């Protein structure tokens, strides 16, 4: 059954419309990747699901309930957690404090400091480092760990690979199977198409705020993806 239903939403930034009548469903337990070029509306979609943006038209339903009007901080207790683009680590807090803030809602579940440190061993050694002093990879691992600390049913990952060395990206994505294994539904936004195809059960390609292609990675050809991605 669908955990998340995004139903024909329009999202605007002032006069600028970023998303046009977009519909996406994500089933419980699956990993969906949303790919697309810069400005395709990927991050806007995640922010709308997390509650930072509101759709002007259409509905966002989570577990069957319409949450379109719910403030972002009220969606976390329901089990929606976003790792935002650019990581947005709290710079004056230590990495461990960042993780603890992620557990602010005290939603029960598998994830706690111990399990996060098991999944991202590099964080265990750096726990007392201030966010501002952490490397990009440490920050990204912390950002994901912080989101996991709320034990989400739906984890939204925005541009995990952005600005990181390939080896670091590889390391961080290596944690994804363990996250899915806990039954967590994952919606990942990526510019790195290869990375997205590797981890996802299903892929959506966005172009200028509309969904132009959808399918299982194995069933889509390179040409199909390329033409959807670039709109040619």
């Amino acid at each position, binding site marked *: 059954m669908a955990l998340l239903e995004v139903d024909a939403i329009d999202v605007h930034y002032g006069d600028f419309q970023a998303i046009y009548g977009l519909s996406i469903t994500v089933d419980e337990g699956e990993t969906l990747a949303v790919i697309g070029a810069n400005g395709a509306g990927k991050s806007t979609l995640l922010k709308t699901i*997390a509650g*930072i943006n509101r759709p002007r038209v259409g509905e966002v339903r989570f577990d069957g309930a319409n949450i379109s009007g719910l*403030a*972002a*901080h*009220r969606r*976390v*207790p329901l089990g929606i*957690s*976003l790792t*935002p683009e650019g990581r*947005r*680590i*709290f*710079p*004056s*807090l230590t990495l461990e*404090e*960042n993780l*603890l*803030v*992620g557990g*602010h*809602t005290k939603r029960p579940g598998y994830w706690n400091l111990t399990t996060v440190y098991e999944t991202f061993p590099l964080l265990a050694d750096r726990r007392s480092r*201030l*966010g*501002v002093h952490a490397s990009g990879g440490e920050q990204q691992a912390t950002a994901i760990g*912080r989101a996991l600390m*709320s034990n989400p049913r739906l984890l939204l990952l925005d541009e995990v690979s952005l600005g990181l060395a390939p080896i670091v990206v590889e390391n961080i994505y290596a944690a994804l199977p363990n996250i899915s294994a806990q039954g967590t539904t994952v919606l990942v936004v990526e510019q790195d198409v290869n990375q997205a195809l590797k981890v996802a059960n299903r892929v959506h390609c966005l172009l200028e705020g509309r969904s132009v292609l959808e399918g299982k990675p194995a069933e889509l050809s390179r040409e199909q993806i390329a033409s959807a991605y670039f709109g040619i």
Partner: protein
Amino acid sequence: MEWANAIVQGVLLGGLYALLAAGLSLMFGVMRLVNLAHGALAIVAAYAGLVLVQKTGMPPFASIVIVVPLMAILGWVLQRTLLNTALNRQALAPILVTFGLAVIIQNLLLELFTADNQSIDVGSLASSSIQITPDIAIGVFPLITFIVGVLVIGLLQQYLARTATGRAMRATSDDREAAELMGIDNKYVYSLATAISLGLVGIAGVFLGIRTQFNPTFGDATLIFAFEAVIIGGLGSLWGTLAGGMILGIAQTVGAQAFPSSGVLLGHVVFLLVLAFRPTGLFPKVVNG
């Protein structure tokens, strides 16, 4: 030894300034809001203490137990009704709103209490002192004020550093939107910060009312001294605010020792020197987002 005495008195005076500035520092630190009504609210607390002491005959220090929760509730309501709305507008809105609030409060106090100077009477405590050396005597009341100032700042610092709510406040201060994504309600955090801030103003106001003669216009000078303590110490740093309060206090008392009529002026000069040469303050928060 006169100079040593001036420095000791300055440090003690700094305790009062730190007490006055702690709430200002907290509100700026958590929500980047400059509360221009801070001084006027301290005078509200002073009058609240005065009325309680005069009408019920309760001991002045006991009035703090009633004034602090009243001020905290006022802070919560202010944040919920006015300040949260102001914070969502342009950067200038909170400044205009709190400035207007200061004007309204001052005029209400003038209507209620006239412009006469008043003071909360603590009897012999006001003049009792401890002789340290032949030249240095420490007033018991200034000493109490100083100890309370240091305790308040220490406790507030521990609260922010060690509790989950304090952590949520620091996270909100760093990145309001990211904190919201962690399930933190920034309106709640802000209301709590303002409630704590005005609770501290409650303590500071009663101490101020005991220490000096005050009238409804006294809030302006109070705001300036608190502001100077925060800026000298460095924005967003509580220990810096304590140090800033002491530096300001020392500048004023040592200044008065050298130029008997210009103590306050020398405090302002030190403030301006810091602003000119170390605009981030002497002990700024190490990290900035």
